[in-house]
């Protein structure tokens, strides 16, 4: 397959895709008006509409995507996104709302946000919520900053946040950015939080424990209630990374386990599409005692009207200029309204069914380093293939040759050669069987023809890419 040219290579003087109405007011003499500051752009390319459309259309088909096939990227919940969401989020009454419009003009939007917040609180068991954070990571920052403010208010000087070694990278990063020190807690041989170690780590300087539950191994922290109690007994709080909410929505509410604060990734559990990397949305739900610290504004329902409450003296402040990723919220709202409590529970159940089916079928074929019951995802290890000179990366690349996306690899860090598989609930048994068959065939190939793996992928638009060169040469801005 030929490379698609860069858009700059289509450029030619006086080509154009744009059109605008003719200016119907007097022109401003820009050179005169702006003097030195006048500098009309002469740097952007010039292309026709047909070149534009063909270019991006051709580029698009180089991507694997959920609407084409299986995308078992662990921790990312790559479920199928209902098409109706794309329609509701594009209703002109939503898309054309200016962010500064008065609340009276945006009652529909505010109602949607308010109700979405209520649903999320109900689903998670928390007392209050903000929909402002733009993604999970910003939700973490928001949540941990609230924890910080909470202790500031109490006049306690706590500097440490504990994080299990299986945590996602955003957790420690968010903790640092919130001004805390991230301290790692080792997992047990079972893959859970080591309570003894946790107790040891608990001092008065500890502000918070950040938990992912089910953790990144896909396993439920069976002692979560006790864990929360331990932290609380030390005056510390417990944060839940809700990335894995899809495992238990409708079945268990983390608020009931004792968590103080959690973020929710709407782009995972609530089926808003991933956009090639974003946008997502990371609402943060909290218990009563953290409510005063929520970012501004908070949405209220009063006297039959929905409104923004800006009068929040203890708020950590804003994290975005406006009120969050509104169009993403619409999609999540639509999804929840369509599924209802039953449908959400069904989704969690099928997600867990699917993960356990894959686990069962691939156990023995790949190493399974942790044995507890899996929920929505299962983490294998490719160490058993090392003897053939094959790494997990090679398995991942080989999968691409079969038209399948690879699992998340090399995460969580506590699993060597990790293969983190999250099938999600929208995959059918046929789809799983196909993946399983391919995974088995690859494991066999690793023994019989390892070069098929180490040289993979073979059939993709490009072969294995030189990442070292990329980071060395840093060609990040076309100079042509």
């Amino acid at each position, binding site marked *: 397959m030929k490379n698609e040219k860069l858009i700059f290579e289509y450029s030619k003087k006086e080509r154009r*895709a744009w059109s605008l109405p003719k200016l119907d007011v007097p022109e401003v003499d820009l050179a005169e008006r702006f003097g030195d500051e006048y500098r009309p752009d002469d740097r952007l390319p010039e292309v026709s509409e047909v070149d534009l459309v063909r270019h991006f259309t051709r580029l698009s088909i180089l991507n694997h995507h959920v609407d084409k096939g299986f995308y078992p990227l662990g921790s990312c919940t790559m479920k199928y996104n209902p098409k109706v969401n794309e329609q509701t989020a594009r209703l002109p009454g939503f898309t054309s709302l200016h962010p500064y*419009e008065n609340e009276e003009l945006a009652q529909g939007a505010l109602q949607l946000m308010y109700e979405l917040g209520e649903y999320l609180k109900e689903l998670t068991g928390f007392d209050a919520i903000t929909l402002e954070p733009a993604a999970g990571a910003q939700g973490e920052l928001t949540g941990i900053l609230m924890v910080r403010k909470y202790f500031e208010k109490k006049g306690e000087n706590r500097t440490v946040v504990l994080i299990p070694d299986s945590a996602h990278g955003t957790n420690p990063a968010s903790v640092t950015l919130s001004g805390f020190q991230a301290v790692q807690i080792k997992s047990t041989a079972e893959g859970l939080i080591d309570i003894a170690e946790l107790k040891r780590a608990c001092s008065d300087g500890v502000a918070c424990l950040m938990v992912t539950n089910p953790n990144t191994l896909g396993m439920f922290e069976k002692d979560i209630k006790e864990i929360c109690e331990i932290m609380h007994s030390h005056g510390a709080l417990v944060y839940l990374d809700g990335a894995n909410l899809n495992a238990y929505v409708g079945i268990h509410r983390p608020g009931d386990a004792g968590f103080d604060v959690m973020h929710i990734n709407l782009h995972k559990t609530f089926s808003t599409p991933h956009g090639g*990397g974003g*946008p997502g949305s990371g609402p943060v739900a909290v218990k009563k005692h953290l409510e005063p610290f929520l970012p501004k504004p908070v949405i209220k329902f009063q006297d039959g009207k929905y409104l923004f409450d800006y009068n929040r003296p203890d708020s950590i402040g804003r994290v975005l200029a406006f009120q969050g990723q509104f169009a993403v919220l619409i999609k999540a709202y639509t999804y929840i309204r369509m599924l209802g409590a039953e*449908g959400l529970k069904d989704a969690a159940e099928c997600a867990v069914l699917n993960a*356990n089916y894959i686990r069962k079928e691939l156990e023995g074929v790949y190493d399974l380093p942790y044995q507890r019951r899996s929920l929505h995802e299962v983490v294998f290890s490719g160490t058993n293939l090392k003897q053939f000179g094959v790494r997990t990366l090679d398995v991942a690349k080989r999968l691409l040759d079969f038209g399948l996306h690879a699992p998340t690899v090399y995460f969580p860090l506590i699993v060597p050669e990790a293969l983190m598989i999250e099938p999600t609930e929208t995959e059918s048994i046929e789809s799983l069987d196909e993946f399983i068959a391919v995974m088995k065939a690859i494991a066999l190939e690793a023994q019989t023809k390892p070069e098929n793996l180490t040289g993979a992928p073979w059939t993709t638009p490009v072969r294995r890419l030189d990442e070292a*060169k990329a980071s060395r040469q840093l060609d990040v801005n076309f100079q042509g």
Partner: protein
Amino acid sequence: MKFTPHTPEDIQYILQKIGVKDVASLFDSIPQDLKLRDPLNLPPALSEFEALVELRHLADKNLGTDRLICFAGGGAYDHYIPPVIDTIISRPEFYTAYTPYQAEVSQGTLQVIYEFQSLICRLFEMEVANASMYDCASALAETVHMARDITSRHRILISGTVNPRYREVVATYATGLNVPVQTLPYTANLTTDLKALNNTIDNDTAAVLIQHPNFFGYLESVRAIAQITHDKGALFVCAVDPISLGIITPPGAYNADIAVAEGQSLGIPLSFGGPYLGIFTAQKRYIRHMPGRIVARTNDITGKTGYVLALQTREQHIRRERATSNICTNQALCALIATIFLTWAGRAGIKEIAKQCCAKTHYLADAIKHITGFTLLSDRKFVREFTVKTPVPAQEIVKSGIESGILPGVDLGNFNPEWSHWLSITATEKRTRAELDRYIDFLKTFSA
């Protein structure tokens, strides 16, 4: 409505394969007392048709710029969005993929990002751009961390002419980093007070953050500010407006070290404030301190050109607590929108849009300054936005505009009680002369 493809038989088959008796057993790792017993208090499930009806109903309760003539800006603008954008971004190839972790089956997304970076670099005349922050505010906030790391200094100055919303977000992020942020006053002309800057900046100042054109619409003395800032060894960080760059000097040309921007103007719908697009650019020497994803061009083992995520060692999934930022999911689809928009407009189009916004805004300013009771708050140059003093509280004008089918601007009293009679006004290329005249007539009704 369900989206699971599981038939009752499928479920039985899988259960039997797994070797558990029922679905509930799969959840036996969740302690019994933590399982939900009571039914959830959610509205009943809707069919797709009912959901559409319900959502249309909610949408119709809003009065947006599809039904009001919009003169409000302040960081979000009612620009024309060409249909090619939705055509492309509606392709599931783009919107149902995720971060291009497997580069070989993500070349579409990766090349788009490379083109995005290159287009932004060209427009800004900056050397490197990342592949998106959440919005301009959070992009600006991320520069605090970056400037601190680069300079090993611990103080930030931010001009009082920066969008107050952006300043709020900077403050939030800076709190987390324990970095004090000092706000610089502005002159009567609504631009940064250079004297105050000169007096305040010191050897522990990591960066000076300004907006240009500023929140009130006016051009700052960027070269002078750059000079003062660099003389003290601090970084010069500038939030700019990508549309204005169609006609005015880009940040690279006045030595900005980091330039950020709100990308909403580049084809992204207003959508009540999000998702938008944080544009983040810098000089190349700072690239290892940058937050966010960066794509680089390379080749595959056969020598064929390809694109990959570069410098991932900066990022949270590798560097963890020492990462340059915690950002993971970003605004990739919005970056695609901007890429299409900039391609659509090209050099001539972006200039024309800027020119039209400029001409229409000036048409308004020229008329409004003659309306008794209204005064332009500054005689400094502006491109697409300006601020007027109103004879009655701006709030009243905004309220009564609605009845006339007009969104009269941004009531700055929302941000500062001292600004209660300040109205920020913009006009994009979408506004016709008839609409401008109608607006002028509307303002005349407040004539003192």
